[in-house]
């Protein structure tokens, strides 16, 4: 997909002026202006949400789409006496918190896929030690769990790169990380 410049490189005032003008014209029935507005809004949101959700790149585009739909459906809640970006950011934040909350309850039931997992939360200096200890535990895992964790969590590759490297599908990589971390945590608990 074509990527437009994220809003982060633009001063907020420019975003405000450009978005507001296109939005008002869209409200007046100018479909081309409204389309232009949505494209720019999408780019702006991609920057806004990307900066805040950098731990979950896969979720950003989903959330951008959800926000676009929400803003379209709720455009009657915008009043022209108010900065458009304030309206946009309030909705984006609301939808983002919604997502994080849903994630939170999902991962409370399973295990976090993220860096707040205690084994990966060590500082950089301690990382080598932690990894060596982990090596033994990791070795006990089947390849389909071990390789995704090694590549994604320890080497920092993306899901797609890992999939290419291991010949697994992307969803198999994600499942592997998830199940693997779960198994790993059980092993760590037994180890103590």
């Amino acid at each position, binding site marked *: *997909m*074509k990527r437009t410049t994220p809003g982060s490189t633009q001063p907020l005032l420019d975003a405000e002026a450009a978005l507001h003008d296109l939005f008002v014209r*869209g*409200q*007046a*029935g*100018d*479909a*081309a*202006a*409204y*389309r232009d507005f*949505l*494209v720019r809004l*999408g780019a702006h949101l991609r920057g806004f949400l990307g900066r805040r959700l950098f731990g979950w790149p896969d979720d950003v*585009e989903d959330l*951008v*789409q959800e926000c*676009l*739909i*929400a803003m*379209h459906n*709720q*455009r*009657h*809640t*915008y*009043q022209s006496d*108010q*900065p458009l970006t*304030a*309206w*946009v*950011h*309030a*909705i984006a*934040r*609301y939808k983002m918190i919604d997502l994080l909350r849903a994630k939170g309850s999902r991962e409370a039931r399973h295990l976090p896929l993220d860096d707040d997992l205690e084994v990966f939360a060590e500082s950089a200096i301690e990382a080598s030690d932690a990894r060596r200890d982990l090596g033994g535990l990791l070795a006990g895992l089947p390849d389909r769990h071990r390789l995704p964790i090694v590549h994604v969590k320890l080497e920092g590759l993306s899901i797609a790169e890992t999939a290419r490297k291991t010949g697994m599908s992307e969803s198999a990589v994600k499942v592997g990380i998830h199940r693997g971390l779960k198994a790993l945590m059980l092993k760590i608990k037994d180890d103590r």
Partner: protein
Amino acid sequence: MKTDALIALLAADAGPVPRHAATRRLAWGLALALPLSVALLLAAYGVRRDIGEAVGWPMFWVKLLFPACMALAAFVAVQRLARPGVRVGAAWLALAAPVVLVWALALVVWMGAPAGERAALLWGVSWRICAGSIVLMAAPVFIVAMGVLRSMAPTRPTLAGAAAGALAGGAGASVYALHCMELAAPFLAVWYVSGIALTALLGAALGPRLLRW
């Protein structure tokens, strides 16, 4: 779906949308709900018999207008909370001011009264039914205000629910004042404020559940 495809889909739907939707819907809702609330009062309690005389007493108007002022402030707060990214601002202050004033009045009356009469000023004859009745009278406005909020986009559902509750509680208390025989400021400060606060709490509790979008 690709984002570009989604945008094309949404752009096909461009066109004018209602302006000042929150304020208008809320105003229409109130125009519908207030008569309903009065009808509820007439059916369940009736207007006080001496209403003709009562309209000449200042305290009758204090009792009627302090909740009405709260409802007015809450109206402003609700229509602001219904729209993302709008600050409530001074509306909170305007909502608190009538409470502070009636409490100040109550304190003056309380201090000035002989100790033996204070209990009567506080409990009146109807304290048991007062707060509950206000919540009941608030029900039509409460339902309408929550309905309007559901059609909008409140990003702070607990606060929005509380404001809707305060709006309904204020309106309900004003309506109930047409029946209520009490005139003592301490009674109003405790039981009227309780009724309104109860409705606001109900709104705050239901907000996160009812106002998701």
